[in-house]
């Protein structure tokens, strides 16, 4: 970051960022990079709608300043949906009826990916814990838990 440029990879491609290091990652993703699958629900790290993977870990992009992501790897729903794992999770969400208004769901899919990365055959408890940082006001969560279980079964070997 010696030249004042922030370099990172987003969904596998290199990005160079030269604006203020204080901007929120969420805004840069949405406004500059067009990654509108990342949603803003609360802007204070509570709801998880803006969840992404940062070096493989689930984080709320509204809580991250651009200055902290130099040389890091980012994956958003836009990247995950192109992978076999992502397709499997999205399919499972659709089949389980785990999608209602949909606003929290891209973030929830990222959380599901995080759960399955850590435990390819998660227990209900592990799933509930893994998605507990992502709030959904519509589904009551049961069908989301079921979707993660279905993804784990159908996508056995992917994680």
């Amino acid at each position, binding site marked *: 970051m010696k030249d004042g440029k922030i370099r990172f990879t987003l969904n596998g491609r290199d990005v160079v960022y030269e604006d203020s290091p204080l901007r929120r990652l969420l805004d840069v993703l949405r406004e500059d990079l067009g990654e509108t699958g990342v949603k803003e629900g609360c*802007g204070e790290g509570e709801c998880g709608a803006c969840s992404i993977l940062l070096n493989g870990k689930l984080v709320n992009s509204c809580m991250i300043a651009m200055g902290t992501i130099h040389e890091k790897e980012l994956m958003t729903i836009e990247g995950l949906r192109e992978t076999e794992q992502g397709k499997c999770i*999205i399919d499972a969400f659709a089949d389980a009826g785990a999608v209602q208004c*949909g606003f*929290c*769901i*891209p973030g929830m899919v990222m959380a599901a990916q995080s759960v399955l990365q850590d435990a390819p055959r998660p227990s209900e408890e592990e799933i*509930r814990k893994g998605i507990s940082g992502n709030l*959904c*006001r519509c589904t*009551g969560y049961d069908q989301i838990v079921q979707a993660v279980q279905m993804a784990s079964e159908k996508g056995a070997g992917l994680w």
Partner: protein
Amino acid sequence: MPHSISTSVRRKDAVAKAAGTMEYLADQFPVSPLHGKCYYSSISRGTIESVSLPELPEGYYIVGADDIQGVNRLHMIIEDWPVFADKEVRYLGQIIFLVVGPEKDVILDLHKQIQITYRELTPCITLEESTALLEGVQHGEDNVFTRYDIHHGQVEYPFEKAHRILEKEYYTGHQEHVYMEPQSLFAHWEEDTFILHASAQCPFYIRKSLVNALGMDKEKIRIIQTPTGGAFGGKEHFPDVLAGPLAVAVCKIKKPIKLVLDRKEDMAYSIKRHPSAIHIRTALDKDGRILAHDIDLRLDGGAFASCSAVVLARAVFTVGNVYNINNIRICGRVFCTNKPPSDAFRGFGAPQAIFAMESHMNFLAYALGIDPLAFRQPYLMKQGDPTSTDGKIHEEVMLPEMTRRILEMSGYEKKYQDYKTRPNWGIGLSYFFHGSGFTGNGERDLIKARIYLKKNRKDQVFIYGSNVEMGQGISTTFCKVASKALDIPIDQVHFVEPDTEIVPDSGPTVASRSISVVGFLVQKAAKRLKAEWKSGEDQSIIQDYEAPTHMVPWDQETLTGDAYPAYSWGVNVIEVEVDPLSYEVNTKGIWGVYEMGVPIDRQIVEGQIIGGMIQALGYSYLEKLEFSQGRFRQATMSDYMIPTSMDFPTTQCDIVDNPFEYGAFGAKGAGEMVFDGAAPAFGAAVSQAVDTIIDEVPVLPETLMELTDEGR
């Protein structure tokens, strides 16, 4: 046997939503030339004495009441809510200005420089202060927005001859919607037309509300609904409140402006569920049988009427609940206070009313020493029974079968006996019902729904109506209804996103009416199209609402007749364990059995059931929203707790079919009824666990501690 339409299909919008390709309003207009930021009043009640506005850099505007071309009133049910406060302020958070400009930082800086001098008055916070007309009247002659009185049978005489009279008051608190997508609008001019894109439930409501402020023909006001990230009633009328200032600004500046609330603004200043205080007085004979109820039902309407009158109506017509009581008197009132206005929220007055009546039935059973389930049985409504409005229950009532099922599923009876001697454990049951569609003559005389069905030359069929997809699955269920009636694949049927310029007014997306009332029109239209089907040709059908002929006519003057054409029914059981040290309540089991005619897609309906019950359990236990010094103390999502995946266990539910003649493939409403039963069942379970009577939600650990320490 379940109806074949109930077999689940994959939702049409599921993949786009899960994959993040569905564009909500903020995604469609990620960068806007201009942003709007509301300037809100900082006091709860008073008059604006003077205003000092900052000097504006070029391209920045502060828009207020002086910029209104038309009348400074939003048209809702009555016209009391101004677009911008100009002289009087009625709640902390009332919009006084809209600050508009290209850079958010500059807007915020200008915002800080606005100075207003108020002459403050003491606000009315409680129902008692409103009744006492503290610092003078604010609405009408008595601060009562609306009053509805019902008399069914006689009341004076049963109370005179009563062996015993028991009474108690029940309270419910505010609730915040917390739709995940905050309130969002984007507006611009195109030639001579004002165009508004909005995350909303009722595009035609917004159009109607703006006619006054803009002083324009409604044909020149176009509302386009954007994919709506949850609403639950919170986007029924409140988008009107934001659309007013935005429309005035766009009218003045003639440039596109985006207005998206951040979560803190949304939670602080948007409308909430009506708090309630419901006093029930009951006359009993010497055998403990109910002779009569005398009910005083009060709702806190907040600062402006909004749709309080209609919420009150549903509360009043529902408070008798599923019981056939010969004599009942209900006085319902909604009061003006200096809080953010109360408005629509899933259940719409019914959850408050049912919590009160079900808790009261438990209280009576407890006081009489009778098992609460057994106590209820003689009063359960049956087909042909009168309602509290002297209407009639037309459908077969499935409550006995539903009761059997839920007792089996939950093991209620054994647990209820066991927990009498097992401290800190409890189980509770509630019955409830919910009328489908608008109250009284609303559908026939006010809404007059219309839909279009159009087929193109490729034999693709399109459904045009104003009911919006907000998560409940209507874009799929409408297509299912049409495809089934047309006997064509669902992929050949398409739901058209509401846009007031291209869809007819089939009414708002409220009142559990979309499938039961409008879905029925879709089915009728599809049936006609099938009969006239000419492959390879453009065809279109217009279908208007026709009132069912089976109803007892509604009289709005006397409030008698069938308040609703049909009811959906439910029974819930909740099992809890209370921590004896922290008084935290752990929910151990959730069961629900429902009758909503015929479910149009079992999976979608189960999604409504589970989501509704969890939202209602949040209301029962987690969602504390205290009002203090003009503000809600729980001001963010960090301190207003909605349920997470860890808070409640898996929900067990079942559905009983009972086709309704005037609903799409027999369907009645589902989306609201699923909210109605959890709070009283939860209250009953906690009552048993701590051996006290719960008369208030949310049930807070601190309340339980006080109750237990101080005794009953």
